[in-house]
Structure formats: C-alpha cells, structure tokens
C-alpha cells in the first residue's frame, strides 16, 4: 500500500487520471445528441453513443426495449468467482428536460473550466463517469462482485418506463450509486423527498357572461376555491409541501369558464406521510363547493423518498474516504429534489445519490459542469466500488 491505496486501486486511479480528454470527448458526443424525454429516437441515439463506448471496452450489453420512451440499457462487468453475486449498480439517466433542437442551439462548449450544453451535468457527465469507472474496472479488476451500469431513459418525467427496470435491478443489487450531479462545494445527497405529481380537472358549464350569467357554472371559481386548500396542506416543519405549479382554464373573457385544471406537486419526507397527503389532495380535488361543478383527480407521476438509513450512512462514509483518496472532501445534505434513487432505496437497497461530477443550474440554459471534477469523481466512485466488500455495509 502506498498512501493508503492498494496497487490495484492505484492502477485504476492512475488510468482514470489519463482519461480526462477522452471523458470530455464522450461527454461532448452525448450532449450534442438531442435526447429530450419524449424524443424516443433521440434518447435511443444517446444510448447508442454509450453502447459504442461500452462495446469498445468489451463489456456485455443488454437492452430492455421500450415502445414509447427510450430503451433501458445495461452494461455488465461480471465477476464469476465472487461469493456475493448481487451487482453493484452505477445508475444514470440520459434524457434531458430540453425541447428538441436544443443541442443545435447550444452545442457542448467549454468556457473558463466550465462545460455547457443541454444535460451537461444533469446528467450526461454522470453517465460518462459511470462508463469510465466500468472501463477502468474491466481493465484492471478489483471489483468485489459484478458491476452494472444502468442507463435509463425517462427520469425527467418521473421514470414511467424505467421505474420497473430500476426497481427490479435494485432488488437484486448490493448497492446503488446514482450519478446525479454533486452540487457546487462538493455536496452530495444524504436524502431526498418523495414527490407525487398530479392533475385536477374541473368541469363547469359555459354560459354567456352577460346574457346568461346565471346559467353558468364557473370551473375557474371552483379551481380558485381549491387552490388555497391545496396550499394549506404545506407543513414546512414536517417537510411536506404542496405547490400548484400550473393552472389553466376558460374559453374567452365573456364566457363563464366550462373547464379549468391545475397540476399539483407534492413533496414529503417520510414514506408514511405519503398516503395521508395524497388522500388529502385527492379529497380537495374531488370535492366541489360551487353548485354544479364536477372534478376529477389523476396521479401523473411519482418519486419515492431517499431515506437516511444506517446503510446509506455507511455507504456515504465509504464514499467520503474514497473521495479523500481521490483528493477531495465531500459533505452531504438533504434535498427536496426527487430522483430515481428514491425507487432503489425504497426497495431496501443501500443507495448513494448525487455523486456525479459537480454542476449546477440544471434545467436552465445556464446549466454548467465543472470539467475538472470529471476525473476525481470517477476515481472516488471507482475506489468506492472496489472497497464495497462483504461486511462493509451493515446488514439491511
């Protein structure tokens, strides 16, 4: 051992240190491949970029085809002799929130040490990191069991097609590292809120606002009565928040509104808070007080919370030490933002989230990546995987 690293660890770390340019090259190709969540063709094209890299490294590939969204992709580095056959999963999504054509308007570029472009930190850089970690382990070994890079297709829209794949993978896994970006200041995630995204539609009755005002039933009035009730469910101390993020309704200024709708975003911390909050939202959504108004409620998507368990803490400690050996120091903080890591944690799989290269301003044109963090983050992740031997994590 030299400076606390085994020879094997040093080989992996040193090789990754030579891969900075290759990482940027792969990242550039990925960012410039348009892959908005609803653009299956584009998301699959981004998948091909990664598949070519994995194949060139001699890694086994497996695709779970999807009809509507992009396919789910799995690259596997096997370990035929390990006792623990449960894979260590490096997870990431390749869809972005941006509209079609965004990479044409804002192709990948580097300025003052920051990389820019759609999805550059959220989370194409994380996918690049995962790919190079798998390549390094393929080259030098040292992983304590099978390692899987899972590349999903639809996280930005609450993972409608990848969720079952993620959950099945999590049930079979030893641990999951999710490559969402670390935040500026080297902060990773200690826990995340769960989220339920729903829609309420109100139906009233159209009438001319002048001549037949009394015949009308205003869906907008009913919606306006519901909105403050939704907001009242917010309990900041408990970590429960309700946001009516989008509304619309009506036909013309002089027609009593026959329809109106809103989209509701619920966040909660404790899994047990979920059902009560959803029931309360549903009750408000489905109960009308304007005579003649009716309404409906649908859940459109959902993320589960990432809880701070003892196993997650042990995984953080392992990563913290590995990061230190890669030359940087990390801290963890709780966030209300949701991610796929909630699904894996809910399956009982130890999960560490936001260990991707450092970035910020996700979902905006100002999204950036700190290029210099690609290599150290890959090193920290590789070392963490290598050290994830039996007994490192407390029994779940």
């Amino acid at each position, binding site marked *: 051992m030299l400076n606390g690293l085994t020879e094997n660890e040093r080989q992996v770390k040193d090789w990754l240190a030579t891969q900075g340019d290759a990482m940027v090259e792969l990242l550039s190709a990925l960012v410039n491949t348009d892959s908005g969540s609803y653009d299956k063709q584009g998301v699959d094209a981004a998948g091909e970029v990664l598949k070519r890299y994995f194949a060139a490294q001699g890694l086994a590939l497996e695709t779970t085809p999807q009809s509507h969204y992009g396919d789910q992709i799995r690259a596997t580095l096997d370990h035929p002799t390990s006792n623990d056959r449960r894979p260590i999963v490096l997870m990431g999504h390749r869809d972005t929130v941006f509209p079609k054509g965004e990479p044409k308007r804002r192709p990948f570029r580097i300025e003052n040490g920051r990389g820019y472009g759609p999805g550059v930190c959220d989370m194409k850089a994380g996918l690049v990191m995962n790919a190079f970690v798998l390549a390094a382990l393929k080259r030098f070994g040292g992983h304590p069991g099978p390692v899987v890079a899972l590349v999903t297709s639809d996280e930005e829209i609450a993972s409608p097609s990848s969720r079952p794949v993620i959950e099945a993978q999590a049930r079979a896994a030893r641990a999951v590292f999710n490559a969402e970006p670390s935040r500026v200041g080297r902060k990773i995630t200690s826990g995340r809120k769960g989220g339920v995204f729903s829609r309420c539609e109100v139906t009233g009755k159209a009438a001319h606002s002048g001549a037949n005002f009394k015949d009308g039933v205003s869906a907008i009035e009913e919606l*306006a009565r519901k*909105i*403050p009730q939704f907001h009242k469910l917010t309990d900041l101390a408990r970590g429960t928040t309700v946001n009516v993020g989008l509304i619309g309704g009506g036909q013309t200024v002089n027609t009593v509104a026959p329809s109106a709708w809103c989209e509701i975003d619920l966040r909660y911390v404790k899994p047990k808070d979920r059902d009560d909050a959803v029931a309360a939202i549903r009750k408000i959504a489905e109960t009308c007080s304007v005579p003649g108004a009716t309404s409906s409620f649908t859940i459109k998507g959902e993320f589960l919370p990432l809880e701070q368990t003892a196993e997650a803490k042990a995984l953080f400690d392992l990563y913290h030490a590995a990061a230190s050996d890669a030359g940087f120091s990390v801290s963890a903080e709780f966030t209300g933002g949701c991610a796929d890591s909630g699904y894996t944690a809910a399956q009982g799989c130890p999960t560490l989230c936001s260990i991707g290269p450092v970035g910020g301003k996700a979902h905006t044109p100002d999204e950036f990546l700190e290029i210099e963090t690609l290599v150290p983050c890959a090193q920290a992740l590789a070392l963490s995987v290598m050290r994830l031997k039996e007994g490192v994590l407390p029994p779940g």
Partner: protein
Amino acid sequence: MSLPSFDVQSMLEGLRRWVEIESPTDVPEAVNRMMDAAEAAYGEAGARLERVPGRDGRGDHLVARSPWGEGEAGILILSHLDTVHPIGFIERLPFRVEGDIAFGPGICDMKGGVYIAYEAFRSFLARRRSALPVTHLIVSDEETGSTTSRHLIEQEGKRAKYVLVTEACRDGGKVVTARKGVGQFEMHIRGIASHSGSRPQDGRSAVRELAHQILELEGLNDTKTGVSVTVGVVRGGTRPNVIPEEAHAEIDMRLPTLALAEALIPKVLSAKAHRDGVKVSVTGGLNRPPYEKTPKIAALFAHARKLAAEIGIDLQDVSTGGGSDGNFTAPFVPTLDGLGVEGQGAHTDQEQILISSLAPRATLLFRLLATLS
C-alpha cells in the same frame, strides 16, 4: 298602412348565402368577404355606400345610406356581421332547416337581424322615402368589443335621432331597452419563482395569489344590484415543480348603472397582493357604458309597441346583461335594441332562428323606418 310583402322563402335563401360566408371577427379577409356580399346587395338596392377600411386585424365596416335627407339627423340602424364561430365551424353547424327552425353559425347573432334590416331598408330604397334619412352601419368587430368601430358608432350615433339595433330579440320576442355596462380587465400577478422540491420556502406563488384575487372578485357578484363578475380565462406557472412566478386572468364585469360602475371599477383596478413579494397589476376598464332605460328610450319603446300591436304582436321589453353596440349610443340618443330575429343558441353549435319570425320582425323594422320622425 301599406306594408311590403316580405317573401319568407327568398329571405331565407338570402340569409343562407350570408350564413354560408363564415366571418369570424379575427379573420378580417373572411369578414370582408361577408361585407362584399352586403355591399353588393345594398349597391343593387341603390344605397349610397361607404366602406371604412379595417385596421388592427379587423375587417372593414360598411355604411349604407339612403339617397335622401343627406346631412339631416335620421335613423341609424346598427348591426355587425362578424361572428364568434371559427372558420370551418359550418361543417359542424351547416345551414339547415328543420320545420320552423333554421340553423347556422351567426344566423341569430346577428346575420338574421342584419338581413331583415336590409330587406326593410331596401323596400324604401326601391320605391319610397321614409320621413327621416336612414343609415345602416354594419361593423366588423362587435364580438370582440368593437374596438375598431366604437368611434364610428359614436360618430354616427351622435348624428342620429334614433338608433335601432338589430341584435336578436330575447325570450320569445322581447326587445331590449336596457343593457348592463361591460367592464373588461386583465390581471397580471408576479410572484417569485423557486424550485418546489429543493427551495419551496424561497418562492411566492403567483397562482396562489391569483386564487385569492379570483375569490375576492367572485365576492363582488350581487344578484340584488345585478352586478356580475366572470373570471373567464386563467393561466399561470411554467412547470409543476416550479413555484409559479406569473399568473394571469381575464375578467368580465357587468354593471347595470353608471353609478355602480363608478363605485366598483376602481376597486378592481386597485387590487392588492396578500403577501409580501407578490405584485398584482390590473388594466382595463369600462368597455361598454351601461345602457339605461331613459324616458326617451321608454317613449321609443312605447312607439314600437304600438306599431307591433298593429301587426298582431304584443311587444314586451327587457333589460339584459349582454352588451351590444347599443351601449355606445344609448347614453346620448334614444336606442332600441333586440330588433333582430327570434332565436337561441347564439355562440354555440345549436345556434338557430325561428323562420316564422323573419317576416313579422322585418315588418316591425319597416314600420319603425316609416313612422319615426
């Protein structure tokens, strides 16, 4: 009393041609095709014609004048030929006749009324003069508030002794002697955007503020005074997971009297936010003044009622919440509205008229033109 004989079949045929020229307010070239047809009809009948070019995305207005009585105060017939139905709506609501009912977009509001006024005026143009000169003003934008025609309406109204508006009659044939004033407003709310997951406490929801504002506006509804408030359109927010920075509402207010308008409009315009960090701004105002039943309007109605009785109609009057171009003239010149055809379902896919109302209503208009002095 000599009455022209209005031939129902030929009137219905003429009206059909007009209904089949779709003319939504926001498609000026379509409205102009409609104006072409009306202009051609009046040209043939011998009226003096003026065409006022459209502007601001609206079609032309048409003025047809009697060749007699130039420069004298006369009778202004006030009509519009734009409709609310979009192009292609005719596929869903083709002109068709079922017994005494004829269907079609704009047939009731108000192509039927314009057509019978044309027939009544034409019978003077053909062979006789009325005591007063007659001007038929047909505008292109009533359905969106007459923003490009208001000045013209007021100008012609000020020159007139009487104004007859050819909006459809109400509830089984009633004419209109009062209309509520119409206030229209736009409300913009600016809050503070924030991520609903990671920084919910930093945001100030514009949507939440809008909900409070809507509830306060709804609170101005008063069945006793007849004030009504409709928040007709709302939108707000960008994504479900963002605390909305902006929200917007379009508001329609109906005000029976000028006094109520003066009391309530400032309240709407000065709406205040309920939370720090949120700004509410309201623009708009009285779009159409209240049309109140003055003694002169009551006298004009009494005259019309007498004429109606002569042809066997027991004419009643009514006040309504719906505004019309009559609101612009009623404050200064006796105005009688609802002189168009009888029908229902205006603005819907069931818009229809009673065919049997065409001839009596044309006759009533004819008699008004013949007797007003």
